[in-house]
């Protein structure tokens, strides 16, 4: 990253070198496998940037406070809430959204296939977050049985209440993908 635009001078104590304060930050990271650069105000969340600047609208702004999971993305392979993540905190990292889950030729990911096969959605609003979360849940080794899936998928709410089908889909996808090592 490099600092740019306006920089504030701020008092510092002791002999520590002053931190470099910026109102605008240049950030670069991998987004769904491709290098991206962005210049953002520090307050911009990954959720807002993905939807409004990158045009990736799979991620949804449900609660915007970390309660619903519709903004789930992978950062360095770990699932996180895009609404609780600043773009400036993604510098140098690897970000994957639901748009980056399928194969490059459009082949659906086993989790996507399983959601269709098990009819694991009604309105579909939570589905991108559910799918990204499920991919991580399986990779973590937490898709072992119904109770464990329900516990480790509890960060993704479904107000249509498709939880039985979602749980089935996650377990089925995990089975199709084989034992995780």
């Amino acid at each position, binding site marked *: 990253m490099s600092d740019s635009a306006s920089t*504030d001078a*701020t*008092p*510092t*104590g*002791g002999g*520590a*070198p*002053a*931190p*470099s*304060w*910026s*109102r605008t*930050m240049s950030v670069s990271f991998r987004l769904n496998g491709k290098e991206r650069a962005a210049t953002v*105000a*520090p*307050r911009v*969340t990954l959720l807002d940037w993905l939807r409004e600047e990158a045009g990736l609208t799979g991620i949804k702004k449900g609660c*915007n*406070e*970390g309660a619903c*999971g519709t903004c*789930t993305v992978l*950062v360095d392979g*770990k*699932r*996180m*809430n895009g*609404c*609780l*993540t*600043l773009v*400036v*905190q993604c510098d140098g990292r690897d970000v994957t959204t639901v748009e980056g889950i399928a194969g490059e030729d459009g082949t659906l990911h086993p989790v996507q296939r399983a959601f269709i096969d098990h009819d694991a959605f009604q309105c579909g609003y939570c589905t991108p977050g559910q799918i990204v*979360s499920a991919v*991580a*849940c399986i990779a*973590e080794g*937490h898709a072992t049985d119904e109770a464990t899936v*329900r*516990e*480790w*998928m*509890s*960060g*993704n709410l479904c107000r249509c209440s498709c939880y039985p089908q979602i749980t089935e889909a996650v377990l089925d996808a995990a089975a199709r993908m084989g034992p995780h090592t």
Partner: protein
Amino acid sequence: MRDFSYARASDVHQAVSALSGSGAAIIAGGTELLNWMRLGIAAPDRVVDIGGLDGLDGIALDTGHLTIGALASLNTIGEDPRVVEHAGALAQACLLAASAQVRNRATIGGNVLQKTRCAYFRAEEPLPWACNKRAPGSGCAARDGINERHAIFGWTDACVAVQPSDPAVALACLDAEVDVAGPQGRRTIPMTSFHLTQEEAAAAGEDPARYETRLGPEEMILSYRIPVRPGRRSAYVKVRERASYEYALVSAAAGVELDEDTIVSARIALGAVAQRPWRLPGAEAELAGKTLSKDTLLAIVEAAMRDARPLAHNGYKVPMARNAAVRAVLLAGGRS
């Protein structure tokens, strides 16, 4: 959320120096700070990011201590075999907190600094009711309002909030020490006195609604040190209104050392009953030498709950906390 200036700290010294003066905040995971800024609970001019600091996210086991860096995530701690073995209550508390996604962002440093979930406190500006934490002198809407989630110990008329952290309860039970850095260097604060009840803040001559921890405004948490005792086992019980991803109505952490069925030593801390983890020193002393049994535990913990001062809507917390404590001790002792 208002705009702010941002900087990445290159070391602890720089992070601490960035806190000098007013209007600065630290960000690590950001799961609390971003929501504070959205609601107007915090409006820092400057935010210093400590997420990239080296060496603060580690977990280490050496003779006598388990050390956990402030930047370790709740998921990392909860699934670490050393934590599971030597500080089971902490591992369980971490994994019973929040959701899988939030736990990947949330750090153990920030977790104990989270603020109350009181609905009167967590409202968007402009605040439509009184809250002494948000607007000093305005009053406490919860004191005589909807207070079923609020304190039964240590509150004053100025504020009846509870501290919602699960890991803090486990850390207090396990006699953890918090290592902090500030302008004057480093110091250690016992976890049992890291947070203050409203009564303790008032007794210290501070604002009972706003003086919540002994961490100074220019200090940051570096790590936690948990004494490891080979014979001690611990457990965490969290009681909540839904099975997962919910704050505690009450919780309890317990650690016990047993000689066959005899309790050699016991530690009990209750959560969501006060603005700090609520240890039961009287009951702990009483339990030493007793046989581990449900009836003995119930009688002794019951006696320790006599000091409780429930509000209009949270009388249920007294027996619920007692039962959670009994269950936690039994679980820690290998009984179910």
